[in-house]
């Protein structure tokens, strides 16, 4: 609520500028009148007291400016002025305006393309029809998710719950770049798999390896 109040106040300072100025002027005049009352009580004539009080007080305009700034009134005003100056300047030089708009448009378009490509190829989960119906099978009483190949065959042949079942395995391997050996995840052909099945796993493996090198791991592994 305080944010709203502050904003409303700033809008008020922008649109009721003259009313607020009047109020400041009234307040300062009231101060000077009270000071003059005191001076009059000390024996001065009213006219002399008022003159003295005004001189003592100093430049009212300077203080009103400072009061206005203390209220935060300058923020909206300068913002509005900036907007107007920009619009005027841009109108005066349409060539510059066109160049600026084109540059921005191209830059935004290039960014959008690069990000959508990166998003589609690297950041999105595996491109399967229903990623949310992709599960990794694991024995409930084992901490490891590894299964033996005969178990896999049993699962595959007796599967009634899933559309299909697939096996894969991932290993950490060294990637030699002549300078250093970087750990990477690689795919190993499961013992006893047929070549086509291995190629199929390997295909997914490329994606998984890529994603792992990018610092991400697959959310679900295909089984």
């Amino acid at each position, binding site marked *: 609520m305080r944010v709203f109040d502050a904003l409303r106040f700033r809008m008020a300072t922008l649109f009721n500028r003259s009313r607020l100025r009047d109020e400041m002027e009234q307040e*300062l005049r*009231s*101060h000077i*009148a009270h000071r003059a009352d005191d001076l009059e009580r000390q024996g001065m004539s009213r006219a002399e007291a008022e003159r003295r009080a005004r001189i*003592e*007080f*100093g430049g009212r305009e300077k203080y009103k400016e400072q009061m206005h700034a*203390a*209220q*935060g009134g300058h923020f909206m005003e300068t913002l509005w002025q900036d907007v107007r100056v920009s619009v005027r300047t841009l109108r005066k030089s349409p060539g510059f305006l066109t160049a600026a708009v084109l540059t921005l448009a191209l830059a935004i378009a290039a960014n959008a393309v690069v990000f959508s490509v990166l998003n589609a190829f690297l950041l999105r989960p595996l491109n399967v029809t229903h990623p949310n119906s992709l599960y990794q099978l694991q024995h409930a009483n084992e901490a490891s998710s590894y299964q033996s190949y005969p178990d896999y065959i049993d699962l595959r042949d007796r599967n009634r719950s899933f559309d299909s079942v697939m096996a894969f395995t991932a290993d950490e391997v060294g990637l030699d770049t002549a300078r250093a050996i970087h750990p990477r995840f690689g795919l190993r052909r499961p013992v006893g798999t047929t070549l086509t099945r291995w190629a199929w796993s390997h295909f997914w493996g490329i994606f998984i390896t890529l994603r792992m090198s990018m610092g991400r791991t697959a959310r679900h592994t295909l089984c």
Partner: protein
Amino acid sequence: MTDQAQLLPGTLDLLILRAVSLGPLHGYGILLRIGQISANALLIEQGALYPGLFRLVRQGLLKANWGTSENNRKAKFYELTVAGRKRLEEETASWNRLAGAIAAALSPQPEEV
């Protein structure tokens, strides 16, 4: 007038809060009250008070209302908000700590006596 001390930056706000802590006052009244409680030892430009007042209102430490003064003139009266009273207490404590530390540092040390 020459024996009046210049205000340190930031102390005007504290003095204003202190002055209105005893009850609502208009601007001129605040000046008189500061003079009274500081035995006229501080030099405050009359006009410089007002930007300070507006700043404190904006910070929600003071609230202002138009009313009629003891001289039967229209005047804007300032009073402490709850936040203002809290701030006054904090600032007073922190000022006393600072003043005490400076006074201790400036007092004659044993090796000087």
